[in-house]
């Protein structure tokens, strides 16, 4: 795991803007400005860590953009989702959580797997959550590496579909 500096890679396809975040969300992160008439997709897969100041910047930014057409978050890593249960303001009513990672772990084999949960298939915000059986490379069952009550609590909140 390399804890590189925060980066945001921007791409535009037709009218949809996609930002790819990577590195550490901390006091040095700068979130670009956005045209409020375009839907925005933010891919968070490359985010390695989020500190309290990163949460401050994110919360401030997303609340300032609650009038944006839509903000779709995809491939949210554990380090980001873990904060959802603590801070309601991390997502706003115009935010769609399209997919997020759930860490599984086997203490015996010390193997770790991050499983991508997809909206509609594995969960629906305010709806259902389907936990898969996850096995390690030796075929042994792996445990959730999170407290499910906390980690999935954001799914109980109402959100735009």
């Amino acid at each position: 795991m390399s804890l590189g500096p925060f980066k945001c890679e921007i791409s535009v396809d037709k009218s949809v803007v996609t930002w790819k975040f990577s590195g550490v969300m901390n006091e040095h992160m700068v979130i670009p400005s956005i045209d409020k008439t375009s839907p925005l997709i933010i891919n968070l897969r490359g985010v390695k860590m989020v500190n309290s100041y990163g949460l401050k910047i994110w919360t401030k930014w997303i609340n300032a953009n609650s009038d944006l057409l839509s903000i779709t978050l995809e491939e949210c890593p554990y380090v980001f989702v873990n904060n959802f249960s603590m801070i309601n303001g991390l997502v706003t009513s115009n935010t769609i959580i399209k997919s997020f990672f759930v860490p599984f772990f086997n203490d015996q084999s010390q193997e770790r797997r991050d499983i991508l949960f997809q909206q509609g298939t594995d969960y629906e915000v305010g709806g259902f959550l389907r936990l898969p059986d996850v096995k390690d490379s030796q075929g042994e069952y792996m445990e959730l590496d999170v407290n499910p009550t906390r980690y999935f609590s954001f799914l109980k909140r109402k959100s735009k579909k």
Partner: protein
Amino acid sequence: MSQSDSPFEFMELNQISPEKDLEKFLFTDNAPTLAILDMFLNQKLHHVVQRSNLEHDKEILVSLDMDRDPNCFFTHPISTILRIENPNDETEKKLRKISFEVVNSDDKNKLLEDVANYVRGLTKANSLINEVLNTADELYTNAIYNAPYVDYSNDKSGAERDLKNIKIVEDKRPHVFIGHDSDRIVLGCSDKFGMLNIRKLLERVKKCYENELSKVINYENGGAGIGAFMIFESSASVYIGVKQGIQTQICCSFAYKLSSVSRSQLPKNIHIYSG
């Protein structure tokens, strides 16, 4: 609040510390963090040790050490907390696996990489690695942005978070250290300013437990105001020592052999010393 009014179970303390200051100690179990913080703020409490946390007996010893011989905690923090052997220079050196002196303000990334590699040598559980890393980040950030730039009232949260505002004074370099035993990782950070107001810190953490965090975040200049809460949430035990104007040292322990669920259910131990 008298012992009989307490909602928690009390141990017979007079066998351990018969002579003085019993109101400083609470040995209990399953007391919620918010209730403990409330007691720290409204009573003379300095140490809470909870039976269901790890190494109950050693934690009681830490309470007594920090109370009777606080220098032991300041000079040999890891060996005082882990208590494999008596704390001294030799045992401290043996247990201290990373000893990181902050020389430049942008040393944080190097420190976090070192800490991540070290913890990954003990467990591959991402949740635990993230808890230790986040704590290291918050302790480092506090040591370079807050400690040198606040007065003891701690009414303001230090320098604005930009490295150009920061100067590391050569004889007051913060120090981050880490070590472990068979169950616990201990991570700590020490600065030579001694400007942490423990009461203010506990009030801030309590506010985070009582309110929706997005409403507690400081959106103005300075820190986010939730870093200390994140440290408390991540750690099994927190040890805070302040020699006013001389040194602040915060250590945290992590139960690295437990699952994420078990860790999140551990009732917290808190130890403070202020002198």
